[in-house]
């Protein structure tokens, strides 16, 4: 599904190049649940944004299915991303000016889904995430966990093939965090590919595979337990 080859990202200021990612090769199969780990500043989020087509790599090739993302224009990329990718962030990132209902509706509007279908999709989603009662509220009227629930619902509503989650439980208490992770697990079982960035070992344990980044280099790969019948004790770096 995703094929990264020699992905490098750097920022130039004056004569100094600051490298964020160095020569990353990565393949992600459809249906995988991948975790990216590493200390702050290792380039985890940047990698996620590049995969999500919200940022460009400085060098390297990126194929999404068979599309060469690195050589597509912005419009084309937006099209691919709009049809296939859902995002979940640490700080939820709901649109403050919109109600829960409208937040859920927005990606469908951009996808130009017809009004009737849109209504039923939003209604389904509200049901599924049990937030029907909250549909008229604004984000600042919800707790963190509720906001993240809406954010996940919003990411899922377009029925994406890929969900990218940037520390999705970072601002949540442990019970809320678990709920969200269970949700991801369920979505993954239903066939959605998930890539998450996290500091938490516990969260990582929900995934099939873990990669580690350090100073922009990809250090190692590990397969984790629960899914895919793989052994749970992989190579894990503390």
């Amino acid at each position: 599904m995703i094929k990264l080859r020699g992905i490098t990202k750097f920022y130039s200021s004056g004569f100094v190049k600051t490298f964020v990612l160095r020569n990353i090769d990565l393949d992600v199969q459809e249906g995988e649940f991948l975790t990216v780990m590493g200390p702050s500043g290792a380039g985890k989020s940047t990698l996620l944004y590049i995969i999500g087509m919200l940022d460009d790599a400085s060098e390297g090739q990126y194929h999404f299915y068979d599309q060469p993302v690195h050589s597509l224009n912005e419009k084309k990329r937006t099209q691919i991303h709009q049809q296939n990718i859902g995002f979940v962030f640490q700080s939820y990132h709901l649109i403050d000016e919109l109600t829960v209902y409208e937040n859920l509706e927005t990606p469908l509007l951009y996808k130009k889904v017809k009004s009737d279908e849109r209504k039923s999709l939003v209604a389904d989603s509200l049901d599924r995430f049990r937030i029907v009662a909250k549909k008229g509220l604004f984000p600042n009227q919800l707790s963190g966990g509720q906001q993240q629930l809406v954010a996940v619902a919003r990411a899922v509503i377009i029925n994406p093939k890929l969900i990218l989650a940037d520390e999705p439980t970072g601002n949540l208490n442990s019970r809320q965090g678990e709920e969200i992770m269970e949700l991801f697990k369920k979505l993954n079982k239903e066939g959605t590919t998930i890539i998450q960035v996290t500091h938490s070992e516990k969260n990582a344990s929900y995934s099939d595979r873990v990669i580690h980044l350090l100073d922009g280099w990809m250090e190692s790969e590990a397969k984790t337990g629960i899914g895919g019948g793989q052994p749970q004790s992989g190579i894990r770096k503390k």
Partner: protein
Amino acid sequence: MFKNYFKVAFRNLSRSKGYTLITLSGLAIGLAACLLAFLYIQDELSYDRYNEKSERIFRIATRMVREGTEVNIIGAGAPTAKIMTEEFPEVENAVRFREEGSAKIKVGATVFREKKVIYSDPSFFDVFSVPLLKGDRQAVLTAPRTVVLSQTTAEKYFGMADPVGKMLRVDDKSDWQVSGVFADIPRTSHFHFDLIVSFSTLDMTSDPSMGSWMSFNFQTYLLLRPGASASDLEAKLPLLFATHLAPEIKQFMGISLEDFMTKAKMKLDYSLQPLAAIHLHSNYSAGEFEPNSDIKYIFLFSAVSLFILILAIINFINLSTARSISRAKEVGLRKVLGSFRLDLVKQFLTESLVLCLMALAIACLLIVMVLPLFNSLTAKELALGALLNPLAVAAVIVMTLLVTIMAGAYPAFLLSAYRPASILRGNAGSGAGRGRLRRGLVVFQFAVSAVMIIGTLVVFRQLHYIQNKKLGFDKEQVLILRHSRLLESHAETLKQEMLRSPQVVSATLSSYLPVPSARARLPIARADNPNPRQAFPVSFWRIDEDYIGTLGMKIVAGRNFSAQFSGDAQSVLINQAAVSHFGLKKPLGQTLIMMDMQADNPGKMVSVPCTVIGVVEDFHYESLRESIAPLVLCRGQSLGNLVMRLKPGNIAAVIKTLKRKWTALLPGEPFEYAFLDESFNKIYESEMIIGRIFAIFAALAVFIGCLGLLGLASFSAAKRTKEIGVRKVLGATVREMAALLIRDYVLLIGLANIIAWPIAYYLMQRWLQNFAYRTSISIPIFIFSGLLGLAIALLTVSYQAIRAARANPVDSLRYE
């Protein structure tokens, strides 16, 4: 999708109330100014368009150059209309007018004084689209001593009764029969008549000018055939003089037209003015029915109102880019959710459209509120309803969209360009480049304001200069009784009676005043001029021996007229300009030859020698726009006005006495009086209007500019919170911090003023060229306008700056 955009737009606008208020009020004021200008211009351009044939109607203007002096007259010789209809195939019809001036109309026992009385041809109703409500279209204005009345006049005279066939007693000597009623001439016409009298009423035989080509007293309008070219016709006009004027010259002077022209150093030509151009493009000195407007005012008004709108648009751009940081997260998120850049551009344009539509609604309310004031200022009857025609609606829509795009496009493209990756990780663009743009726009705003402030100051300074200019006469405390000519021999009696009142210091009778009043010119030459008949016509007034004293003029050499000198009938006073005009080294005792009309035969000129007995100090008897021209004053009867110099005190009592005496002498005759200083101020009415418009618009410009500054100051204070905190931790005082924050604005406004000064100087210097006597544009005006702009701007930003500077550094650092 658009529903969503609108919803978000409304929520955003209501969430940031301060920003919305600033942008909205600015845009509303700007749009209101533009709509008002649009109403005004639409009205000005509609003049005379009520005529269905307006495209084909042309007026003849005569240009006469005599010894290098050009005289422009609206009018042509009496035969022109008829001859042109007969001899030029292009001309379908023609109509002449001859002004009567005022007439006393007696209906039964009631007396009316009518000022809008005109003689005209029956073709009036064929050329102009003025409906004849009563009377026989074929017959009206044909028979002598018949008259058609305007509807209002007819109702005034006869109420509901049918006026046709009724008789009017005119000036107590003749009777006119009413033969019809016409609909009142629309306000947007360059002429308004109440009584139109048949041309055949005029005595064509006893007054030789009535049949002459050389007397340009008849306003003549031509109706061209459809498709005829006015410029082709204009090219043929010299033929008229060759075929018709030449024989007349030959008959009266015995010389050919060419010889006459050469001898008199004269040039003469006719030109054609399109009817629709008269109101805005015709400012001839003689023969206009009513004072016209000027295309200059249209340019001035549209330019000024457009600038106001641009200032408001700048506020919008500045504030929305300054605020862009707060919208950045939303932009990033929408991109994450799959928005195309174009979707975002559309969204932001929708927001600016929502704002513009709200501003438009407020602008309409504002206009409804200020229209009465505006109408009284410009003497118009504008109404918002005048915008309900397809052209105006289209213009308003186009204007609103244009403003939407001008204001919204830059912020929309700027905001939609944000990369979500960087925004969502919390490092939105620093926007140094945008800061430059913003500062540039602020400089522009304040430069425009400064130009307007300087303009206002210069206009008012010139008005002040005019009010206080030493005029050569004393305009205060002078009461003028109009129409004293009607008293005839009783005028002198009334003057003597009024002099008995302790309040009346002195009194004089004359038609000629140093404010708009009667004027006359005669060819006057030095005794040694061999050809006095062709001498330059000089202004010539008849006054009595009390005139100079009553009006407070000064004799600088010789003496005033006096009742004791019987020879004063052949004496004249001249002004200093006349002394140099005639080139007199020792003016006293010199002889001047005046070419006057013979008393019993007005067609014949006789030369009258006069002795100069005194020189009057130059006084401004025309507007200060013109230089003082030579003037000759002779002693003679001229009863047009009774002019009285009053002591300060109970002036109302004097007027009451005067009215009582007037009514006793002329029962039923309307009583009219004026004060000399008020008549004087009327000359400068258009300058007063410009001054007021300038002042209002300058205030608006400053207001909008300050709104923008207020918004920017609060944003920049918020943005610099951390810097302020750090500096305070390092020991900066509140005063130093406030100064730091304010310094930027001082520099910007200083720069704006430096840019504005030469522009304002150039523009106002050009405006002052209209006046022969004018104030200077002095440096204090610039300094004052600069300080004013600075003071207002500082008042605006200092609150924000001081508040930011006083804030607790701990709070501001925790902000991170």
